[in-house]
C-alpha cells in the first residue's frame, strides 16, 4: 500500500510534496517494483534537467525488459538519487523512502493535482485498466 501523503500516476510513479521546501520527491510504487522483478539498471536525468508531466524522464530495466519512467509533474530536477544506481535492491526494500529517484522543483502551483491518492491508486490497481500500464 502506498503511504498517506503520496500521490500516484497510472504508470506507477509516486510523488510527494514537501510543504516546507516546496520540493517534490518522485519514485515508483511497490507494485511497479514487484511487476518488474529483478531490477538491473536505472537511468535517471541529471540535476538541472527539465521534466514534463506524462513524458519520459528515465528508464528502468529488469532482466526481462526495459521500461520507461513517466514524470508525474512539470518541473526541474534538483537532485537525482545516484546512490541507488549501485544498490538497486533498495528499490524493492524501501521504494517510498530510500528508493526515491528524483527531487524536483515544480514548474507551478498545484503541480500534482489530478494524480491519485493511495486509496484511488489501490482501486485502480484492482481494476483491469492497470494491467495496460
Amino acid at each position, binding site marked *: 500500500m502506498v503511504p498517506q501523503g503520496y500521490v500516484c500516476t497510472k504508470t506507477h510513479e509516486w510523488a510527494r510534496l514537501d510543504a516546507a521546501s516546496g520540493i517534490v520527491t518522485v519514485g515508483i510504487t511497490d507494485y511497479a517494483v514487484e511487476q518488474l*522483478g*529483478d531490477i*538491473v*539498471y536505472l537511468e535517471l536525468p541529471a540535476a538541472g534537467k527539465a521534466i514534463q508531466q506524462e513524458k519520459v524522464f528515465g*528508464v528502468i*530495466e529488469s*532482466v*526481462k*525488459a*526495459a521500461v520507461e519512467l513517466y514524470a508525474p509533474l512539470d518541473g526541474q530536477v534538483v537532485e537525482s538519487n545516484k546512490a541507488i544506481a549501485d544498490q538497486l535492491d533498495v528499490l524493492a526494500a524501501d521504494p517510498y523512502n530510500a528508493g526515491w529517484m528524483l527531487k524536483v522543483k515544480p514548474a507551478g502551483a498545484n503541480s500534482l493535482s489530478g494524480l491519485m491518492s493511495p486509496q484511488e491508486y489501490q482501486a485502480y490497481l484492482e481494476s483491469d485498466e492497470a494491467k495496460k500500464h
Partner: protein
Amino acid sequence: MSDISRTVLYGRHVAGGAKMVDFAGWEMPIQYPRGIVAEHLATRRAAGLFDVSHMGRIVFAGRGATAFLQRVLTNNAAELALGQAQYTVIPNAAGGAIDDAFLYRFEEGRYLLVVNASNRLADLAHFRANLTGQVEMLDQTDELAMISLQGPASQEMLSAILDQPALPAPARNSLGIGKVHGAKVLIARTGYTGEPLCFELMIASQQAGMLWDMLAARGAAPVGLGARDTLRLEAGLPLYGHELGIDRDGKEIPILAIAPARFAVSFAPAKGDFIGREALLRQHAVLERIGKGDYSDLSALPRRVMPLAVLDRLPARAGCDILAPDGRSVGYVTSGTVAPYWKFEGQGPSARPGEQSALRPVALGLVESSLKAGDKLQVQVRQQFCPAVVGPNLSAKSPPYARPVLCQI
C-alpha cells in the same frame, strides 16, 4: 483452438507462487517467487527444474520413417545410433529454418522429435504436406510430459530417485530408459542451459507430477521461462524467432548463420537429397571459404550469429543496432539481456564459485560474416553507444559461467 493450453504441471506452478504468462498459446511460469536471477544462479550452482511440456513431441514410426526424416531434417538421421540424440533443423527450400529441433532415438523402430511450442502446428502441417507412405506421425505432446533438470548437482539428484541408479553413458546427447516408482522415464543428456551435466526427462503425463515433486524434494529449484532464456543466452544458444527464422528486415536467416547448425547439417551421400540442400550447400561453401581466409563472396551467408560481450552495465536488447568502430552498421542484436554469475574464488583448476554474484549483459547478434572473435564493436542502446567485443563460440564442455572472463577483454 483459441483456448490457452496448460501443461500437466500447471497446478504445481500456481501452488509454487509462479507468475504465469501466455507463451506460444501455453500458460507457463515466467518466474517463481525467488525471481529470475536467483533461479539462474541456483541452476549454475546446483540444479534447476524446468517444465518444458509445452514443447512439441512428435513420434515417427514405420518403415519409411528414416527416409522421411532424412528429407525434412538437415541432420543425418541414419547416422543416429540407438540411444543417441542429435540437434537438427527443419529446413525450407530457401535454406532458412521452419524450426529447430532435437531428434531422439530411445527405442528401435521409432524416432521422437522435440520442436518449439510456437512452431508445433506449422511443423506438423509441413510434415503432413511432405508425408510419404509407410510413415506414421503421431503428436504425443499431451500424452508425454517433459521435465528438464540442469546443473552440476543434477546427476546426483536423478540417480537418487531412479529405481535403479543406471544413467545414460556420460556423454552429451546419450539416452537411456529408467524407472521412477515403477513409471518409465525416458532420460536424455540434453538441455538448453549449456550445463555440462544436464538431463531432459520424458514421462507419461499422469506421472509427471510425481517426478517433479521427487526432484524438487531433492533440492532442484523450479525455474521459469525467464531464467530459461537468460541461461540459454549466457550459453550462446539460439532461439527460434530470434537467431533463426525471419530477421529484423523480414528476410530469411540462413540456417548456417548459427554456429550449432554446423553440426546439424549433413551432406553425407547416405543422406541423399533433402529440402533446402542446394541453398545449404551454398551457405556451407561460404563457411569453407571463410575458414581459408577468403572473404571475397559472402552472398549466400552475409551475416552470422555471434556472441557479444557488452562491456557496459547497460543491457543491449533484441533490435539494438551494432556498429563498427567507425560507425558503420554491421548488424543488430537478436537476443540480449542481463545474466547473473557467481564470482569465482581461487585460481586455475581449484577455482570455484564463491558466495558473491554479479550481473553483466550478454547478447547474441546477427553481424557481418567477416567479423571474428575479438573484433571490437559498439552497440547502440537508446542514445548511448556501448563498447562490445565479439566473443568466441562457447564449447559445450566448458560451463557458461566461465563467461564473466569475457568482460575483461
